């Protein structure tokens, strides 16, 4: 089976590529990145601010089940060419991961399908590798917490 989302992260580099083909017309894909209420739906996060324009800025945050702030990120938009390109920064607040530069290129494939090429550049190789490992580490933690819950219940 062909994977729809591909990651190209070469060893010893401080950048990576994410590519994905969408079963959507290009204008709809672009809208999904520029309209706050749509971003909220697919990112599963609250959009505090999103100015989809050159020199605009954005801030997003997520709270856990108890309402505590779990995650907050922000960035500025360096370039925005409608239905073609977005260049922006992204920074997870209060983390050691630094600021990443993100270049989004939107490409027509057919009238009903399109492609997104995301080029993400990190401050260092170490930071790229840390961000890359994050979902794996979180997965292990979740499994670990589950074991903790089971063990606590047995006591």
């Amino acid at each position, binding site marked *: 089976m062909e*994977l*729809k*989302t*591909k*990651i190209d*992260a070469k060893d010893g580099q401080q950048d990576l590529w*994410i590519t*994905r083909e*969408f*079963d*959507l017309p290009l204008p*709809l*894909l672009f*809208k*999904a990145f520029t309209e706050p209420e*749509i971003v909220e*739906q*697919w*990112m*599963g996060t609250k959009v505090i601010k999103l100015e989809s324009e050159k020199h605009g800025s954005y801030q997003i945050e997520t709270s856990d089940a108890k309402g505590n702030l779990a995650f907050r990120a922000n960035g500025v938009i360096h370039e925005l060419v409608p239905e073609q390109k977005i260049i922006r920064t992204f920074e997870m607040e209060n983390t050691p991961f630094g600021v990443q530069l993100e270049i989004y290129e939107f490409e027509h494939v057919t009238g009903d399908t399109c492609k*997104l090429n995301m080029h993400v550049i990190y401050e260092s190789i170490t930071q790229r590798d840390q*961000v*890359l*490992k*994050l*979902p*794996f580490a*979180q*997965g*292990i933690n*979740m*499994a*670990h917490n*589950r*074991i903790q819950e*089971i063990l606590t219940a047995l006591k």
Partner: protein
Amino acid sequence: MNLRRDVFQAIADPTRRAILLLVATQSLTAGAIASNFDTARPTVSKHLQILTECELLEQKQTGREIYYHINAKNMKEVADFIEPFRKMWDDRFNKLEEVMKNYKPKQ
């Protein structure tokens, strides 16, 4: 068969990750592993079968019991960590596609 992809599918499941963590420290029988989960025993057996098939677990016969232990070599392959990152983006983009397929422009 693409073993590499299968390995990552195997660890995509939270119960299977929990099983791997359990046997990471000691070899255990299927019964001992199952006793750690609320899940039905046949479900745990199925997870063990998948983990064994993708060679993340190995079976060793000791007397009448079969013990499961971790295959360190293949766990190391998993340790390049990229697949969960890819899966995270894939899930996000699948959601985006779903949201936009139902999108109706405002009047």
